[in-house]
């Protein structure tokens, strides 16, 4: 298969063309709003697709370390399989959060909170600038 240009670069090129070629020729307001949304989504997908599997695998290990679980090797690197493992680890993290709050374990709450803060930093990297195009 051809891997170059990578998916993230192609998505970015599509977004650029939509913005510079297609958008100026569109006069219909709802269609303009839709193009504005598509532009933001494509740019986010470009950032996300370049790194998401690596980010998820790394975070699964961090979660397991924080809640005292072993991290087993991934049996598949298909996106759906990694996302499923990531969700399972996130569920375990959620359980640990509930337990820490119910036991008023401030030290563990701080540890788990830091995992969430790290997750948010990556989410913000994906999100970039949010423009609520089409709203008020």
């Amino acid at each position: 298969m051809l891997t170059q240009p990578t998916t993230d670069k192609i998505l970015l090129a599509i977004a650029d063309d939509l913005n510079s070629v297609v958008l100026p020729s569109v006069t219909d307001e709802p269609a303009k709003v839709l193009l504005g949304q598509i532009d933001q989504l494509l740019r986010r997908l470009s950032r996300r697709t370049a790194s998401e599997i690596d980010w998820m695998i790394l975070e699964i290990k961090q979660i397991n370390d924080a809640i005292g679980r072993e991290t087993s090797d991934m049996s598949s690197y298909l996106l759906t399989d990694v996302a499923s493992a990531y969700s399972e680890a996130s569920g375990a993290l959620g359980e640990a959060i509930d337990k820490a709050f119910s036991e008023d374990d401030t030290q563990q709450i701080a540890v788990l909170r830091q995992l969430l803060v790290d997750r948010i930093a990556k989410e913000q990297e994906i999100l970039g600038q949010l423009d609520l195009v089409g709203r008020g």
Partner: protein
Amino acid sequence: MQDPSVMPEKITALLDSEGATDIDISGYAPMTGGYSRLMARFEAKFTIDGEQEEGTFVLRGDPPEGQAIIETDRSQEYAVLKSVAPHLNTPPARFLDSKGIHIGTPALILEFTEAESTLPWIEKNGISDLPLKLAELAGAMHTIPVDQLPSSLARPTSGDPLTDQIQMWKKTAIDHVEHLPIFRYVAAWLDKNRPPPVPVSLVHHDFSTANMLVDGEGDLVVIDFELATIGDPREDLGYFKAYAQAAPPDLIDENPDDFLSRYREITGFSEEQVNPLVMTYFLVLGVIGVVSQIANVGSAMAKGETSSTNIAFNLDNLLFGQAAWMAATDALEAALDGEVN
């Protein structure tokens, strides 16, 4: 609703069913700005109850099945608009097609207002006295007697609106297509740090500059009551602040003391019940109504039950929100620990 060639006939049929005569519909054009519903404006001339009317109206209806990012009820929205009209500056609702018999989708017709969207108005005119007017609008909305509101409006099932909202955070985390640990954290944190209660009232649930206009007198006009319920009124203040983080300016932050003082004066709430820390608490709690709807429809898209760009786009709001909620809980922790005033 997007086809101007067929809509005048459909609107005519709806008005005819309501007893209007001599109906003439023209200038039908789709509008942007509707977050969850399709909207269009049109000119209408008709006679009803012996009175001839002529003006601009707005048709507001449900998108095609499976494409709505939020599921709400036009009949309830119509009933809420009728009940709040004597108390608030809001465009009157005129006609309802509750089942979409005439329009092809559940829809209502409102009078068009010449008022301008709030953010463009602020760009041209500055903040002016909007913060105080916002306090008065919120106060007016939150002091409408509950017994004058439609009985169909959802009320707290547990008897306590905070418990209901916290439960919704937990339920959204559990029901979503993937686990949401940040939602679990927020729910646990909200449960641990509850403020003193206030009496329940009408809650708009999408109380933001996106749903406000400024009229010719410089007064705020509030629109879009599709998410309204009975609940804790401070949810609207928190939601307003949360939305303003994504779409500034935050009118409350212009002068929080003046805003809160005026709001307390109108509502009769105490300083313990409504203060900057409590508002920050509700900045987090108050968004869950909209957030849960966005998450639910995102789950449906992930399962292949529906699909649209708008759904995917709105899911990104959750990324923005998660950062804002965690930052708010952090700021409140510091304040409650006495690290800041």
